[in-house]
């Protein structure tokens, strides 16, 4: 029985772990986050294990399989500790070399180092890589450090100490006031003050209360919740246990997408281990407080990330939202007071308890405290998971951390907050990222997706894409959302197909505003954001589609035409062979495209090495 009964026992366990672990022992940390897995990091990890075994180094070196390191663009990522040498794009065949050179002799394998494209210099250490250097990793601090399936790893870095501190030395009131003072806000995008929510829930009438962790991240292009659940599940559990203790709840639910199998697996392992050590279950730390968590898997509906739909879904009802005039803190799950927070919010709690409210509140802006976690994706050089203090300008995120736009193209817009967020144009790039500023700009914090678009993106097409997503993900309960999104999509599709009329833009604007005002839940209320923001910042693109029947970015298939530049075409025939429609003729040396046959797939343009194919 490994039950930890007192804070002292926890401290003793941690000390023994720290003592037992030699800080100078060479170790490999292989990223097994989803991005790196997709690039084959499982094989790399396996190769390390085999190689270490083969060379008989099991005692001297250690191989650790960690959660997402964040720099997905350069995956599979491998860090060699304790010096933190950073290797990227590692393949299984590189492993023997790394083991015998770096792990044993601290010789660097030059070709695996990351090269800073700006300076052309190779960078040796993880903390010197610009992508990491300019981040402030707090929620994700241990994401690339610990093995998420081993509770001892988490305890060794100080895990569950906040829980011990909270239960042994703090009253519920004290915990809530610390969280209030820290200024922590709902990191799922809502931005509601967490401490206030906890207080409301604590004060709500009823002896049975619940806490819920929302891990139903469904936005295309967002993976911050996922990486946290996969990489450091215990931090979420610890936050939830502290929250439950402060609120007076005895039961917790974690609502996680079924499409996140790894997150589900790691969370379940974490819950089991936590129970084993007595952090979950009856009389935690010998107190009267008992608490347990159960995982509920979401069935793949985007709308179930909305709190009232999520609650309905846990109850076993159809996942559709209800009105929230009576807040879930008063009547939530089974009509009992329920405190629902995003997993990132829960994971911030131990940090706040450990270091105190003031230190947490030092980071961030006046109204938005702490850090925000964003999934930086799209046409940006350094795709990955980014954590920055609230109030960091967009420009810094995209250019300093993200390394600028892919292929040296020009920045056009960034969409924050997932499909319901707005597109922010270049002239607002100095906008500091916090809850209020993003909302003012017509976008939102949302789940922390950040999709960067370059000048080859058609904003009307972007609006069409997200409307299409939302049309299928609207639950269909209320009229403005169900019918309104469908009609907006219809209008926008017409515009991209060249059938748009100028009065359509007015109708689109009117429709978008009504959907925003009249929808029942957050999904509908934010669904028109892409339309409204693109109409606001990129109106000329709409005009180009409607008036001139042209797509300036060359994306909308019905409005463009491919042709071959005579002076550049060498007659090599590369395009001709690949054209699926046999639309390219080669009379003589120069090729021509038959517009009647062309389906504007763009294969010929990609095939041409001479830049002879243009889009008008």
């Amino acid at each position, binding site marked *: 029985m490994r039950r930890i009964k007192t804070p002292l026992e926890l401290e003793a366990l941690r000390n023994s772990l720290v003592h037992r672990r030699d800080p100078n022992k060479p170790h490999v940390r292989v990223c097994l986050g989803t991005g790196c897995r997709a690039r084959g990091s499982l094989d790399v990890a396996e190769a390390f294990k085999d190689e270490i075994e083969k060379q008989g180094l099991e005692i001297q070196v250690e191989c650790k399989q960690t959660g997402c390191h964040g720099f997905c663009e350069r995956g599979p990522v491998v860090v060699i500790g304790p010096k933190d040498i950073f290797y990227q794009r590692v393949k299984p065949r590189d492993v023997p070399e790394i083991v015998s050179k770096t792990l044993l002799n601290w010789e660097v394998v030059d070709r695996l180092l990351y090269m800073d494209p700006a300076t052309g210099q190779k960078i040796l250490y993880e903390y010197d890589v610009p992508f990491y250097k300019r981040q402030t990793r707090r929620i994700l601090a241990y994401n690339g450090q610990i093995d998420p399936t081993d509770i001892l790893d988490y305890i060794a870095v100080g895990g569950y100490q906040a829980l011990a501190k909270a239960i042994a030395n703090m009253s519920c009131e004290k915990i809530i006031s610390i969280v209030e003072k820290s200024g922590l806000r709902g990191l799922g995008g809502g931005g509601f003050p967490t401490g206030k929510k906890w207080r409301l829930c604590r004060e709500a009438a009823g002896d049975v209360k619940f806490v819920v962790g929302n891990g139903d991240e469904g936005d295309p292009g967002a993976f911050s919740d996922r990486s946290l659940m996969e990489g450091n599940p215990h931090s979420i559990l610890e936050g939830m246990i502290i929250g439950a203790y402060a609120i007076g709840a005895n039961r917790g639910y974690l609502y996680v997408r079924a499409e996140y199998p790894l997150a589900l697996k790691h969370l379940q392992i974490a819950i089991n281990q936590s129970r084993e050590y007595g952090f979950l279950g009856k009389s935690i730390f010998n107190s009267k407080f008992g608490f347990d968590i159960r995982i509920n898997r979401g069935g793949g*509906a985007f*709308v179930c990330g909305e709190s009232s739909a999520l609650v309905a879904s846990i109850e076993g009802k*159809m996942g*559709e939202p*209800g*009105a929230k*005039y*009576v807040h879930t803190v008063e009547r939530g799950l089974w009509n009992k007071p329920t405190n629902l927070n995003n997993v990132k919010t829960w994971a911030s709690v131990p940090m706040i308890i450990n270091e105190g409210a003031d230190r947490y509140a030092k980071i961030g802006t006046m109204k938005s405290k702490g850090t925000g976690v964003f999934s930086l994706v799209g046409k940006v050089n350094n795709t990955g998971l980014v954590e920055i203090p609230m109030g960091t300008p967009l420009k810094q995120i995209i250019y300093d951390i993200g390394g600028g736009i892919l292929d040296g193209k020009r920045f056009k817009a960034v969409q924050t907050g997932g499909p319901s967020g707005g597109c922010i144009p270049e002239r607002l790039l100095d906008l500091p990222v916090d809850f209020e500023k993003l909302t003012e700009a017509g976008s939102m914090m949302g789940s922390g997706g950040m999709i960067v678009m370059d000048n080859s993106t058609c904003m009307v097409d972007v609006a069409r894409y997200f409307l299409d997503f939302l*049309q*299928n*993900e*609207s*639950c*269909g*309960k*209320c*009229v*403005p959302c*169900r*019918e*309104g*999104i*469908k*009609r907006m999509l*219809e209008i926008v599709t017409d515009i991209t197909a060249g059938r748009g009329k100028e009065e359509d833009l007015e*109708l689109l604007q*009117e*429709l978008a505003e*009504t959907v925003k*005002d*009249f*929808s*029942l839940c957050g999904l509908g209320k934010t669904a028109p954001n892409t339309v409204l923001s693109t109409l606001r910042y990129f109106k000329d693109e709409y005009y180009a589609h409607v008036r001139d029947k042209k797509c300036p970015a060359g994306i909308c298939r019905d409005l463009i035409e491919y042709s071959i530049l005579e002076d550049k075409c060498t007659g090599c025939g590369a395009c001709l062979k690949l054209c699926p429609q046999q639309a390219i003729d080669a009379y003589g040396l120069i090729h021509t495209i038959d517009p009647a046959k062309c389906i504007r797939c763009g294969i010929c343009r990609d095939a041409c090495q001479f830049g002879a194919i243009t889009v008008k």
Partner: protein
Amino acid sequence: MITFNIDGVKVQAEEGSTILEVARFYGIDIPTLCYHDELTPYGSCRLCTVEVDDGRRTRLVTSCLYPVAEGIRVKTHTERVVKGRKLIVELLLARCPNSKILQDLASKMGLEHVRFKMEDKDCILCGLCVRMCAEQMGSGAIGFVGRGQNREVVTPFRMASEICRNCGACMYICPAVDLQCRGVKSPGELCNSCLVITPQCLEKYGQVMCALESCGACVEKEGK
């Protein structure tokens, strides 16, 4: 008792009642499609949306669900609200052009044409039948399936339900299917008959169903 203000009138209501209930009690007309006195309010048609100022901010709320609170100021027919309701009726009419209840609402609101592509469906997905079956008939033989555009009311697995008693309550309560607007000649056209007929619907349009339950629009028109 809770005292608050609707459209400039000071009113009193019992705690726990909704704005819609109070407004109807005081004779203020707020249009609804998915609301029924005897069923749990659902909040899906959004027509009953009103503007509420709770002292901190003004926002649009669903009056059939919003519990009255001390000191709030409710406005039931502001420009923003009326405009939105009209667009919602327009959206619904584009879906179900032959629904009499929608045609009547359109006439009442002065909606003269629909700017969207017309469909030809019957169900407005108000959920009255589902709630009727479950709450009043104690049966629950029908329910919603699907999401977004694919949402519909069906029996489980689309098979003949074993618990359906064929009581017909769902048909009785349906606002859209039973009464078809007979004034519409071709699908997509707005009836608006009540706006143009004088002096009495019945004489001129024997077939027009609105003669059975006057929307009052014709009388108003005549009065002007």
